[in-house]
């Protein structure tokens, strides 16, 4: 790899210019680069105020929370704004701990990505963080099938977590089985354990719906947003619950109980509102579905399957993922290194069809000829 390959200099929507001046189509997901409407809104805010000194009321913060209440299903109306989606997920767990301080057990749907903070890492890759889990003093029960629910000490459970997609044991990206979620929600409801839907990567249209959890018929008790919510301008995350739940934990104590120095700052809130405006004005959930189909159809002969704008592509057994990613990059397509035997192509939410078509041609060509010379 050339020295400047990893550098990123500028970009727009799904395409960026790397340190060697080459155009690269980004298939690592997110909102998309330098979307003018978002950048302009944040830039205007930067002319007035960056961070807040947190003494007076903040109009952008309250406006964002109101906006989320309008978009999310009832009774999800009270939002807490954090510096990132990962931080928001821990915030959501903290809210659950506030409801049941003596609870020690977290139930989690296996195969999800729960983010980069400590609890998130323990939940996503428990074997790598056993010492951290022991230090933090919680029990983790990972669920993949309905029968796994019997393993849970439900009286000790203080939170139930699931993402909008999971990676199966075969490495394939897929939706969670509806029947598993139905049983999970029912079991959690019986012991009043809140269900957290972690919609950090999948919010704002990636799965074909504004929020990823809307692919299912269940309404979570807490929704965590982040990732693309900041419009690829300023990081931001939120968790939203019912007014009653929020009041139970935070309503009768100092706001500092859940506070943070810079979370919910005006620039971040403006970025989120501009991103939401843009997604709705351009019907990006539908565009995401179309974009996913473009890639999946072009790569159908290789077994590609779309899940919204994300496409899971199985890799031949003899193919080394790192070599494939490097070859793709050299031809102008950036894909995150796979964590299993499937390559996950994630179209940015604002990706333009013609650029994805070009990317799909490159991928097809490489898979057909470079790594499969017989074809």
């Amino acid at each position: 790899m050339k020295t400047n390959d990893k550098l990123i200099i500028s970009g727009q929507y799904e395409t960026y210019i790397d340190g060697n001046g080459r155009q690269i189509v980004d298939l690592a997901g997110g909102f998309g680069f330098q979307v003018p409407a978002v950048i302009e809104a944040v830039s205007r805010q930067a002319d007035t105020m960056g961070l807040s000194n947190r003494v007076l009321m903040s109009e952008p913060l309250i406006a964002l929370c109101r906006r989320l209440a309008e978009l999310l299903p009832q009774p999800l109306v009270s939002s807490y704004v954090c510096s990132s989606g990962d931080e928001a997920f821990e915030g959501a767990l903290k809210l659950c701990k506030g409801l049941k301080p003596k609870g020690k057990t977290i139930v989690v749907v296996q195969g999800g990505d729960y983010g980069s903070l400590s609890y998130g890492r323990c939940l996503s890759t428990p074997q790598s963080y056993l010492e951290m889990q022991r230090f933090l003093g919680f029990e983790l029960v990972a669920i993949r099938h309905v029968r796994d629910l019997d393993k849970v000490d439900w009286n000790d459970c203080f939170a139930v977590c699931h993402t909008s997609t999971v990676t199966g044991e075969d490495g394939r990206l897929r939706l969670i089985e509806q029947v598993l979620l139905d049983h999970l929600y029912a079991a959690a409801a019986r012991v009043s354990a809140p269900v957290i839907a972690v919609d950090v990567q999948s919010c704002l249209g990636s799965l074909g719906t504004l929020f990823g959890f809307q692919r299912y018929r269940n309404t979570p008790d807490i929704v965590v947003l982040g990732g693309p919510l900041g419009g690829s301008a300023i990081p931001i995350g939120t968790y939203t619950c019912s007014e009653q739940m929020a009041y139970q934990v935070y309503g009768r104590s100092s706001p500092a109980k859940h506070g943070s120095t810079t979370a919910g700052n005006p620039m971040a809130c403006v970025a989120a509102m501009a991103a939401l405006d843009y997604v709705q004005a351009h019907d990006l959930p539908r565009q995401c579905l179309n974009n996913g189909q473009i890639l999946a159809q072009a790569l159908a002969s290789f077994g590609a399957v779309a899940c919204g704008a994300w496409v899971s592509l199985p890799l031949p057994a003899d193919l080394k993922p790192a070599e494939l990613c490097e070859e793709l990059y050299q031809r102008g397509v950036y894909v995150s290194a796979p964590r299993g035997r499937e390559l996950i192509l994630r179209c940015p939410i604002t990706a333009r069809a013609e650029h994805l078509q070009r990317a799909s041609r490159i991928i097809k060509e490489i898979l057909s000829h470079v790594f499969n010379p017989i074809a």
Partner: protein
Amino acid sequence: MSLTLSHEQLLDDCQRHWSASAAKLYRLGKTSVEKDTDGIYVTDHAGKRFIDCACSYGVFIVGHRNPMVQEQVQTQLNQMAWVPEGRVHPLQGALSERLRNLVPGDWGDVQFMVSGAEAIEQSMRYVLKVQQHRRGIVVMSDSYHGKTLAAMSILGQKQHHRSYGTEASEVTYVPYGDFAALQRAVGEGVRAVYVEPILGGAHLQVPPLGYMANIRALCDATETLLVADEIQTGFGRCGKWFAVQYDDIVPDIMILSKGLTGGYTSFACAMYSQRLATQYPLSEIEPDQRTNGGHPVACASALAAIDYIEQHKLVEQSRINGGLLRHGLQRLAQRYPQIVEDVPGVGLMTGLRLRGSVYEALMSMELGKRGVHAGHSMNEKAKHPVLRFYPPLNITPEALRHVLTMTEEALEAIARRPKLAVKAFSLVVRNMYHIPNKLLRSKGKP
């Protein structure tokens, strides 16, 4: 300056959609809406201007909307604001190098995060892995290392543990400044000692000279890692670039944040000594280095802020103007001993230690009326809260003298209040969050 919604509607939205307790606070305090900032000033929707000595507990080292920082933020925002996972922007490398050269010591890995609490968490994961053959983390009572759920397990403000059940069995708390107690807790060695070189938060306390040097020596002797949390103290706030310089020591891990933000973006970092980075590279200890921190706009903001601090000699100004502010506050403390206990701090990291939360509430109100914001502890149960004065480091002596005059007027106004009225207000303050919002809403409003 106009509001999009009426003030009452905003309060209702705040109550329902963000924070019911914040709405109570705002209603009781008749709090206005921030609209504009400039230098040391914050202006509300009614056009009233406040000198900002709160600064979100010290974030605005270079002031609000610092022109040098603003220009770099705007330039970067318009060029490239984001980097996908696995890619880097040149400014990230530039900032890492700048920090390695700026912070005293020999530094290796620098990991950018989006908040101080995230950086603390990252250091905890690192400590637990590289010291897995040991047990125990020692932290200081009343210390503050962030309030994410994992970071709370080393939070010294123990009242929060009851609410969340976050007490970790492996963590030992010792009184800040008490080296003998620390020695006993460390014993033959623990995984790490976490310490703020100057205790921040509502318990502001400067340790005795030599305290940090003693901790360094103890950690060396017992092969315990020393983690210095300079989130509040760094970048000149304490009168030196970093508070560890008062004892001329180098920690193994350093956590930085507030000054790094440039007043524009959430930002923090964890720095690992070259020795640690060589022995236990971060890329091996935590191969998945995903983070939301260190995006190009944040790096541009941080680099510009560091340039500004250097070029305008803000560290020296912090020392000189800090002396002016602290001496002025000490003079007032002597005049109003029934209200003020003492004036802790160093540099432009100071405040009034008050005789109860009622005085903190009264002082905040009286200062607010006079156009000054100070950093409230937000702890209505605190017995000796420190109302913090953490102004931007580029505040002028004239502005500080004005702050002192307003503080004197505020103290005088409080001293004139009948004792019975103060006692009655104390009841309100201690129970303010139990008052239903509907009782606090303006009359005649729905």
